[in-house]
């Protein structure tokens, strides 16, 4: 079941497209809880601390209502990507100074990792997020399948 396949960075169990949150803290906590529940992260407090450490170093709201909080953490045991869509706009430090409603929370282990396969997959997702066409599709995705199609196919 835990086979590493090319698409394994996409896990529907850590995707929630119907989040009722009002603040950045609530969204990060909600997605971090999913990561803990599904075995990606061991210690939610240590993990969110590391996320906020990265937040303090620079903006992760990349514009177009999308945020990509991330950071390396020793609390991460499995590389993953939690994806959330909130029902209302969330204030977030962004390059275009607009709030966000789509959040990609990267979980990356804090070690000289031999987990290059997964880092490569995350880099591929990031590359796609630099593409306006993909962003449009991501924003229009109504369910997990459409999101998957926009990001990984």
């Amino acid at each position, binding site marked *: 079941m835990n086979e590493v396949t090319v698409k394994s960075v996409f896990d529907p169990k850590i995707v929630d497209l119907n989040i009722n949150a009002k603040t950045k803290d609530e969204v990060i906590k909600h997605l971090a809880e999913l990561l803990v529940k599904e075995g990606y992260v061991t210690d939610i407090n240590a993990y969110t601390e590391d996320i906020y450490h*990265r937040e303090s*170093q*620079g*903006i*992760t709201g*990349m*514009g177009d209502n999308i945020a*990509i909080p*991330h*950071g*390396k953490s020793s609390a991460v045991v499995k590389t993953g990507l939690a994806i959330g869509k909130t029902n209302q706009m969330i204030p977030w430090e962004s*390059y*275009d100074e607009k709030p966000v409603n789509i959040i990609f929370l*990267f979980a*990356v282990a804090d070690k000289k*990792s031999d987990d*290059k396969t997964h*880092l*490569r997959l*995350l*880099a*591929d997702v*990031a*590359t*796609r*997020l*630099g*593409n*306006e066409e993909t962003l449009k599709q991501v924003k229009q995705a109504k369910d997990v399948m459409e999101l998957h199609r926009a990001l990984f196919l």
Partner: protein
Amino acid sequence: MKIIGITACVAGIAHTYIAKEKIEKAAISMGDEIKIETQGSIGPENVLTAEDIKKADVVLLATDIGVDKSRFKGKKVVAIPISLVMKSPKGVIKKIHEKMETAL
């Protein structure tokens, strides 16, 4: 013109790769050739060769961490924070065009 460059961000997970995509798209849309080396958590990828560097008109360093610039000795180098590429990739390419024109 021929633009080469490097993207590198603090964590080396996301911005490095997003910025590469954005700046490549912008450069191509404005009629330039471009090759970007990423220095992220995976290690250097799409590495610039001596030949790439020799042929390049300008070197763009969009980096928030220190990178080795000795390879680009004698080249015209434009160094900017990666946030500029994230905010306005076309603006960055435009600025490079302006700089190159005034340099002639």
